[in-house]
């Protein structure tokens, strides 16, 4: 992909504008920043909790905070967001509480999903943040179907859907893009090209010139944007979202970024990620960049920044304490939500299990 034009940017490496800055209020800018910082801090704490054996897994998004937050910020609250598993920042931006997220990572009874999924697999319907799945790319057709439904109901709703570079290789990416093209749905696709699918680099993923160009196969446009530049991401997403909202159909956005951490807490990237790459990309850390921009534009002082980070850390700490003192889910919760009503065979199975475990087993794990 070496001969391609560089992706669109708005901030230079010092966080200074080198393009037209989108028209965003100070509040809006600070919300985006807070979402990015929260994501980073949750990531740090989550990885630590995992190493301490207090939670069992964590999948972070170090380096990719701008990629999803810039995109998420371009959507309205009423728009539906279909997340990639790294998109904690969008949940924060839309109003998910840190406490809820920590309970999810611990899988407690207070977790909205009753400890049924691995950490970071959030689901927040009240803020139109769709349930995260582990199987890759499966959410992409859902976003297209929901957009179709919104369209025929005449609702003013756009769907945004995010996924990784590796995820474009799955059949579900292809079928979803193709249906979106034919139906001209109000859907914006975000490919977060972080250069890796676990250990597989993009050149083993596809021979295509770029990910953006894949949109051509479906009859709509693709754009390549600097994924570490939250303003550039916002701007490109905004245009795509407006186009979709006005009946102009789908767009594919490729956010060119880099995964600055392990794939997940189970991964050891030293086996395959070149140290030079990490060093090179760390000069364009999305949070540093945006921080410099906000300082320079007088939106945020250093001490305000400090205070913000302290507040977030405290919230995380409070969440951890709350989760560590919470009870685990009940045996009955094991058989609920399989169907709208618990059918006879599941009732029998739960009752049988209660002979062994009572109503509510102790939370296990290392905490």
């Amino acid at each position: 992909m070496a001969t391609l034009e560089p992706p669109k940017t708005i901030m230079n490496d010092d966080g200074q504008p080198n393009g037209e800055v989108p028209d965003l209020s100070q509040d809006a800018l600070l919300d985006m920043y807070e979402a990015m910082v929260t994501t980073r801090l949750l990531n740090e704490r989550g990885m630590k909790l995992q190493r301490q054996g207090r939670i069992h897994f964590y999948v972070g998004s170090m380096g990719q905070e701008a990629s999803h937050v810039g995109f998420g910020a371009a959507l309205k609250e009423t728009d539906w967001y279909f997340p990639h598993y790294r998109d904690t920042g969008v949940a924060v931006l839309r109003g998910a509480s840190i406490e809820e997220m920590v309970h999810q990572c611990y899988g407690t009874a207070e977790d909205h999903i009753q400890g049924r999924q691995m950490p970071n697999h959030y689901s927040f319907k009240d803020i139109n943040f769709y349930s995260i799945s582990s199987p890759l790319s499966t959410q992409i057709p859902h976003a297209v179907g929901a957009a179709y439904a919104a369209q025929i109901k005449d609702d003013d709703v756009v769907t945004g859907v995010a996924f990784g570079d590796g995820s474009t290789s799955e059949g579900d990416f292809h079928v979803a893009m193709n249906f979106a093209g034919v139906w001209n749905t109000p859907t914006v696709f975000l490919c977060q090209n972080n250069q890796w699918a676990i250990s597989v680099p993009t050149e083993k993923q596809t021979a295509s010139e770029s990910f953006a160009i894949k949109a051509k196969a479906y009859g709509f446009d693709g754009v390549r944007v600097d994924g570490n530049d939250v303003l550039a991401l916002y701007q490109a997403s905004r245009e795509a979202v407006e186009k979709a909202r006005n009946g102009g159909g789908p767009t594919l956005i490729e956010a060119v970024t880099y995964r600055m951490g392990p794939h997940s807490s189970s991964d050891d990237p030293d086996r395959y990620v070149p140290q030079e790459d990490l060093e090179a990309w760390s000069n364009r850390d999305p949070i540093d960049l945006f921080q410099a921009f906000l300082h320079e534009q007088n939106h945020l002082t250093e001490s305000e920044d400090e205070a913000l980070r302290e507040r977030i850390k405290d919230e995380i700490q409070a969440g951890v304490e709350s989760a560590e003192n919470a009870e685990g889910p009940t045996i009955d919760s094991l058989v609920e939500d399989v169907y709208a009503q618990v059918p006879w065979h599941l009732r029998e199975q739960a009752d049988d299990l209660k002979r062994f475990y009572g109503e509510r087993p102790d939370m296990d794990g290392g905490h």
Partner: protein
Amino acid sequence: MTLVEAVNDGLNTAMHEDDRVVVLGEDVGVNGGVFRATDGLYDAYGEERVIDTPLAEAGIIGTAMGMALYGLRPVPEIQFLDFIYPGFDQIVNEVAKIRYRSGGQYTAPMVIRTPYGGGIRGGHYHSQSSEAYFAHTPGLKIVIPSTPTDTKGLLLASIQDEDPVMFLEPKRVYRAVKEDVEEGYYETEIGEARIAREGDDVTVIAYGAMLHVALQAAQTAEEEGVSVEVIDMRTLVPFDKDTLEASVKKTGRAVLVQEAPRTGGFMGEISAFLHERLILNLEAPIQRVTGLDTPFPYTLEEEYLPTPTRVLDAVDEVLSY
């Protein structure tokens, strides 16, 4: 009205009553479906609600799921059950699990309609009977009608059900069975079996096209002085344990008929279930009459499929045990 006409009538009734209902799939629109199950719907409800999709089962199921999440009631058609597998991941990992994994926040009520089973000279890609895959997938309900009246009532109930339903239509009897079918809206309850024929000596349990094979066997048996009770399961998950238990308690003997390959077929589950609960009531081992553990053949399909003769043979065997 034939069974496939009952499908059509059910869809038409549902779309008329409830504008959340949309139909999508390959050739379901202008063409009215390769079996004519969606005939006339495109003209009646327009291309927004009767959607000719691109050729991709994963896309059909996946976008239908998106519609369901958003509040529509999609009824995707898969042209033949044999072609459903590109959409299998969407069904087993997404449609079936979304309610559970989201703690009930998101649900995907939808009815995946698809013709299934042999007997139409379709070879191994237009004849499969893979209901067992779906029955082993928690989160799905599995409904298989065998008569026009049940087809319409069960289809309407499935569309109103809050859970995703696999609705498998026995295409071999699409046009072979006719009945007067009630006009207008009615539902037939999911989860209830039907005693298709009462009898005392042995219970034959079947579903779909095999129900008719069982009934034919029962008819012949009667001529030979044997009284066969025939049960139409209608719903495989959750199945009607009470009706099954009561009948086998009464007769003490059971023959289970499925056209799917024997090993790992759904009747293995029913056999295990009956045996676990009713061993003291059983006068003879439960017998299964099934398809072969081979891909579905073309020329020899009549020999592959269970026939009344083979069912009778099993009936004789449990009676003479």
